[in-house]
């Protein structure tokens, strides 16, 4: 192989300098775009609610493109602390150097900061989110003894999944009541088919069957499945099929196995898939 190593390297971009250039495909279900734009103009933070894989992240990307702001996304996990968001001192050469966290960078650059699945983060993150999310719009940087005043361009967006069955991971009232909430649901059959086709370039017949399979798995929610198949999973399966993977195999890999580990449930989802394809 004489491929130049340098050409294999991923491009290095500063997140706050990166603008989304191409329009991310987004199929609106209702007036979410209007609502988001109005919230942005009023400098209000937004909370996106909805099941996994229904297009929350895609929507934020689309809006960042529309508003021509950089987008900084943080996927929250249960070890994510406030200083992961704000920043910390690191040591280089003989001194300690302050390094901004993603939230601080977003505030400085007037970017859109998107905290994905925010309930996963540790409780102390609310300390930095709250003053940013109300009319103060400041980010306290405790370790530096500074307050960062957000410019008008900055926007905070959170997402969370209310169907997630875990009593430990609910969004507190004091947090949620600071946000404009936009609810996402799975699109209706015709729209979902359109999305699957647009994302995967699959033919209409297969897309229609995939959407039917999704509805079947959503019927099983609560009887062993925590969630039905999301639009994202349908797109994955469609992409596999598009490359010539047999439909039943594609559904098994992209949908059934992604949904569950339970033996009976796996078989049931596969039986449903093989009933359609």
């Amino acid at each position, binding site marked *: 192989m004489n491929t130049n190593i340098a050409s294999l390297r991923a491009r290095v971009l500063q997140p706050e300098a990166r603008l989304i250039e191409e329009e991310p495909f987004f199929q609106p279900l209702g007036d979410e775009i209007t609502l988001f734009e109005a919230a942005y103009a009023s400098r209000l933070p937004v909370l996106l609610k909805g099941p996994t894989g229904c297009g929350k992240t895609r929507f934020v990307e689309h809006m960042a493109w529309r508003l021509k702001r950089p987008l900084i996304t943080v996927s929250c996990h249960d070890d994510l602390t406030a200083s992961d968001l704000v920043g*910390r001192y690191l*040591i280089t050469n003989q001194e300690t150097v302050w390094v901004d966290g993603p939230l601080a960078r977003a505030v400085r650059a007037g970017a859109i900061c998107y905290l994905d699945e925010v309930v996963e983060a540790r409780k102390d993150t609310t300390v930095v989110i709250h003053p940013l999310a109300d009319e103060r719009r400041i980010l306290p940087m405790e370790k530096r003894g500074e307050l960062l005043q957000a410019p008008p361009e900055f926007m905070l967006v959170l997402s969370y999944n209310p169907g997630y069955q875990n009593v430990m991971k609910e969004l507190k009232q004091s947090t949620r009541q600071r946000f404009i909430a936009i609810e996402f649901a799975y699109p209706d059959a015709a729209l979902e088919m359109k999305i699957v086709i647009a994302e995967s370039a699959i033919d209409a017949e297969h897309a229609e069957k995939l959407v039917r399979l999704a509805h079947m798995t959503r*019927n099983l929610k609560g009887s062993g499945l925590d969630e039905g198949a999301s639009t994202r999973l349908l797109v994955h399966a469609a992409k596999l099929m598009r490359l010539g993977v047999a439909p039943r195999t594609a559904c098994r890999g992209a949908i059934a196995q992604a949904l569950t580990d339970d033996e009976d449930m796996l078989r049931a989802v596969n*039986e*449903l898939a*093989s*009933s*359609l394809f």
Partner: protein
Amino acid sequence: MSSPPPSSDRGASARRVPLTTADIESALHDGLDAVLSSRRTPTDAAERIAVLDRPAQDFVLHWVSVIARTSPELAFQFAAAAGAALRVLDAQAAERWIVGAMDAYDRDGLHAGGTAVADWQAFTGHHTDTAVSFESAAQVLRLFVQGLSGRPMAVEPAARAWTDTECIYLPPLLARYATTQENFLLYKGTAALLWAQSRYGTYNADLAAAVAPFDDPARALALLNALETVRLEACIARALPGLAADIEALSRDDLHDPRVSRLREPSASVHDSIALTHELYADPPLFESLYPSVLDPEGAAAARAARIAREKSAFQAALARMLEARTEAGEPAPAFTLEARSTDENAPAQHSALRLDESPVETPAEMARLMASIRQDLGDIPEDYLVPSGAGAAASAEAAEDPGDLAEPARIYDEWDYQRRHYRRNWCHVREHEVEPGEAEFVTSTVRKYAGRIAQLKRTFELMRVEERVLKRQADGDGLDFDALVDAYADMKQGAEVPSLVFTRRQRAERDLAVMFMIDMSGSTKGWINDAEREALVMLCEALEALGDRYAIYGFSGVTRKHCQVFRVKGFDEPYGDEVRGRIAGIEPQDYTRMGAAIRHLTALLGAVDARTRLLITLSDGRPDDFSDNYRGEYGIEDTRRALVEAHRAGVKPFCITIDREAHDYLPRMYGAARWALVDDVAKLPVKVAEIYARLTL
């Protein structure tokens, strides 16, 4: 097929001499005495069993005695059929036959059990090793049917495959094909066909009336069944094309008669099938149905009529509630109308087709389901449905909808029968009660009595409570580790490699633990054992409050399988307050100890708690015991053991603290060697329980 020896010790017993008719007759007499008379003797049965080889004879006599404990009459019927059946069935098939019959007996009584015993030939398929039993396929089929569109349907076993439009009944065993895949596919295909009978309106015509005019209504019904199958297969081919292709590969002998092709049109309905039955009755096409299913017009009509009536009143009550929410008193009530809807059979449930005074109204999800179900029966919502019921009717309809509310709701659990080596399905009914509070004085006097020990325990337990820890020398973290930093600086000055582990990180090592205490409240604890149990609980609660573990306390008792009882002393979310203290004081000896059912119920409760470690600790004074079903002894021990195995699989760790000095005879069998502890001095129980808990969870 000849009869291979069914017993496992084949080599030894095969050499043994077969029993004579007289031997067998006397053995049968012993077991079946209760149902024999001078005119009803086991002689015929014994003669037929006598021609079997010895292992098969032993097998039959063993099962006769097992079944006789459940029902001597069923055992008699089994003995009568066994001679013929065991000459044909191998051991596995015979066992499936017997267990299936006993399940039928448990479920539907003697008549059903007898029918299943008589139906042993159903187990004579040539592919017994690749047969698929209902039990093994049931869960997948249930989920499969639930995934399909339309009204939700149950899936249950029955002697024949049919549907009453509410429940899909499937045979206990399918053994037609040489591979398990094909046999399962037949199950799946049959389930889909029966689902289609409900989904695509087979029973939306009066089938009994439709076949009544024929000289042989049974023959007409069979023809109609075949024609409906043609129509529904076409529906399935449109809705589930993958399944249709699989089924076609399975059968290969479609009904190709051109006269039936119009049934394959999307517009065809059951009325077309009925019309065609009239046309073809004199000269029916040759057909051999793939599916083992039948039509039962009476059974389905009854279920359908009941549902239609129930849903009509529920629908009108729901309309009344919608009106109530919208209109002011005194205003003229607006009228409901219906919007035209699409007729696509595969379209998902239609929403918002309902209009109020010509403007669309939002239909709640429950209402949409109801409307979809009504449309499945009647095609559309009839005009007279659109009249909201009066307020009183609304309430009564709601009550009628849920008859379970009248009685206390019981949770139903399976029970393990070690002799059958199978579960008895839906066998135990467990009801939850709250303990009547007793004198709170008991708790305060206990706290006073053991004040010193409690303080000691609290200190021990507080030490176990791990607070936040600071981890040093981390690669990253939320603070700087200055010790490490100084070292690193020194290293750097010396020209050595600079370590990068210079951060501190706070970590919360939480005790992520939930524990369920299951307290024996059987009659045998009466007196000082009960006092010791209650004192132990008080000390435990006091200590646990210091530790901060989540815990719940439930007592258990009961008489017979229908009345297993579980008493809540403290739920997981309840604080240890006056109410809980009162209930601890109020714990009183009740009846028997059917442990299996209690363990299954409490495991389910514990499973709902989110914790990394889940413990189920039983406080017991003796063996499992109940008034009926021979629960006392081996049966109870084996069922309890089975329930504990299930708990283990569900991620619950069981442990038992007992005061029974004979515990080593049976507790190791139930809990394993290391999962129980004996406190042989009842007086020490209060102190010991908390100590054992501390040791267990350190």
